[in-house]
């Protein structure tokens, strides 16, 4: 665990994601205004940031900061639900496809491949379009529906890994002892797939944020249900980026929030990738650190240096 925390990517990624999850928990409690009510009667022009409204106001004088804080909960909740649900599906389908093989594998792989090539966003638009915009949307339900289109990638990776593990000695011996199939999959194989499960979870959370934001930006999800996507929907329909006096305080915060949350998760993902495959490291080591560790600036061919042990040595020396 401490070895994981040594990677700057993991540390930065963890901090970013933690800040946003915290925001999702306390955001609505510390929001200074109701995000939907107009705070003054001068309608028509959005007001730039001021002491009363730290991030300015929208066209109908709603407080942007409050919208950001309230909308964060919905956005992050949906993406986490999507991530958990998709990962559960991916584990169920991927591990059993790889473990059982045969026609079950053929069928499940086919299903995963179909979901992989179907363009997810247009499909979700049709589904949500028919669900109706008027109905009060439930974040958990939205998350699960998004997960239906997002599990296939993880399932394919888990299947490949399970396949390589199916005939290893420890699995064979578990089978000979007489362990049940579900127990072998859940307690013998799955623990060895932890990094793959983790990256596939992070991947689907990123997918969930992007997809939910896109769907609410399009207006297929009730536009009075505050999320970062609906904020961008209103900013775009008021042409906030096209005005002569750029109304940046309106469209910048929600977009940056989505981007930074996604970046945090992606950095975590890269960190895990590098942890599993040390060759990929090098990006995370600054030039100064590399020079101090006595590494060549340009790695020689065929001799890709694995940086971690060298670094640990240099730390001992200093």
């Amino acid at each position: 665990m401490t070895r994981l925390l040594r990677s700057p990517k993991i540390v930065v990624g963890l901090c970013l994601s933690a800040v946003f999850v915290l925001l999702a928990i306390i955001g609505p409690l510390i929001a200074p205004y109701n995000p939907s009510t107009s705070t003054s009667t001068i309608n028509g022009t959005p007001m730039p940031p001021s002491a009363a409204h730290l991030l300015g106001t929208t066209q109908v004088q709603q407080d942007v900061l409050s919208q950001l804080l309230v909308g964060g909960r919905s956005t992050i909740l949906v993406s986490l639900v999507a991530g958990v649900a998709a990962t559960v599906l991916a584990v169920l389908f991927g591990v059993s496809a790889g473990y059982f093989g045969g026609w079950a594998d053929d069928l499940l792989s086919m299903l995963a491949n179909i979901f992989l090539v179907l363009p997810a966003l247009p499909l979700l638009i049709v589904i949500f379009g028919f669900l109706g915009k008027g109905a009060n949307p439930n974040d958990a339900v939205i998350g699960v529906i998004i997960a239906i289109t997002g599990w296939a990638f993880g399932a394919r990776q888990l299947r490949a890994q399970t396949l390589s593990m199916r005939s290893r000695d420890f699995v064979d011996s578990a089978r000979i002892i007489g362990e049940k199939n579900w127990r072998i999959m859940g307690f013998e194989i799955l623990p060895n797939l932890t990094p793959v499960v983790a990256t596939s979870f992070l991947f689907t959370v990123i997918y969930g944020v992007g997809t939910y934001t896109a769907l609410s930006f399009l207006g297929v999800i009730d536009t009075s249900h505050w999320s970062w996507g609906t904020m961008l929907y209103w900013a775009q329909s008021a042409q906030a980026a096209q005005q002569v006096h750029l109304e940046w305080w309106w469209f910048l915060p929600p977009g940056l929030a989505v981007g930074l949350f996604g970046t945090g998760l992606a950095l975590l993902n890269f960190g895990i990738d590098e942890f599993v495959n040390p060759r990929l490291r090098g990006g995370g080591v600054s030039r100064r650190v590399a020079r101090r560790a006595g590494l060549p600036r340009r790695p020689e061919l065929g001799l890709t240096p694995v940086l971690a042990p060298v670094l640990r040595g240099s730390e001992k020396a200093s």
Partner: protein
Amino acid sequence: MRMITRRIAFYLVTAVVAITVNFFIPRLMPGNPALAVLGRVQAQESKQAIAALELQYGVATKTGLWGQYVQYWSHLLHGNLGTSLNFYPASVGGLIQAALPWTIALVGVATVISFVLGTLLGVAAAWKRGSWLDGLLPAMTFFQAAPYFFVAILAVALFATKLGWFPPNSGYDTTTLNPGFDWAFISNVIDHAVLPAVTIVLASIAGWIIGMRNMMITTMDEDYVLLAQAKGLPSRRVISYAARNALLPSVAGFSLAIGFIVSGALLTEIVFSYPGVGYLLFTAIGSDDYPLLQGIFLIITLTVLLANLAADFVYAFLDPRTRQEA
């Protein structure tokens, strides 16, 4: 060519699944919203249109589910996607046909640029590991994680509104120009396409860079690369040996990426009011135009499947192992 025939069969199955899903979604949803739409349009539209809609959504019709399904297929195979509610009496097929070339040209050019540029940058980043290119990766990650339409909004704000270098919206100057095959029109179209294309490239390039970099690093450890360098071949030659082999997973990953890129491009079009399928989709959502919505879903899916097939052909051409299998 067994690989290609197998892929074609797979895409056919996928297309059938997509078409079937498209048929069942309106029938499975709680409180069929098509009923509400029917109620709304009852006053304004002709009996014929309403009868067609009732048939399309299985409302108040005596035909059974299987009969409706067969009818739906026969309409599709005749190229009949139904009639738009919002642009009545325009047909859904005609509306999409008018919008599709804009989208395909924009997405096609932007995707090719992004793929080529991203792959080259990935090779460079792997070759000079630890150089400034690695420092660029976090910024690239941000553009990858941020939604396409947010990158588009930023591009509009900076390059169109603030600097005024490019027009902020639409596909060409609709007030002064008529579509035609002359230089004035074409240059105007290019001028309007630059900003959306740059947005798509910026938002999609990080994946290619990172994928190529990581694959290059693995390939550079292979013995044949070491031998090439030991022989004293010029670096450019050595790089090309490694890059050619590292490229294969990128091409294979193309089929996964194309769905994302198309979805992102549709959103980009909305920000720019670009006259493509994405903008049409946006109007369809705004006006509850269900037939148009479903038609667009089908056409996008079929286009993506075709693009996938093209990528498979390229892959079979690049990798002789797939051809020898048969």
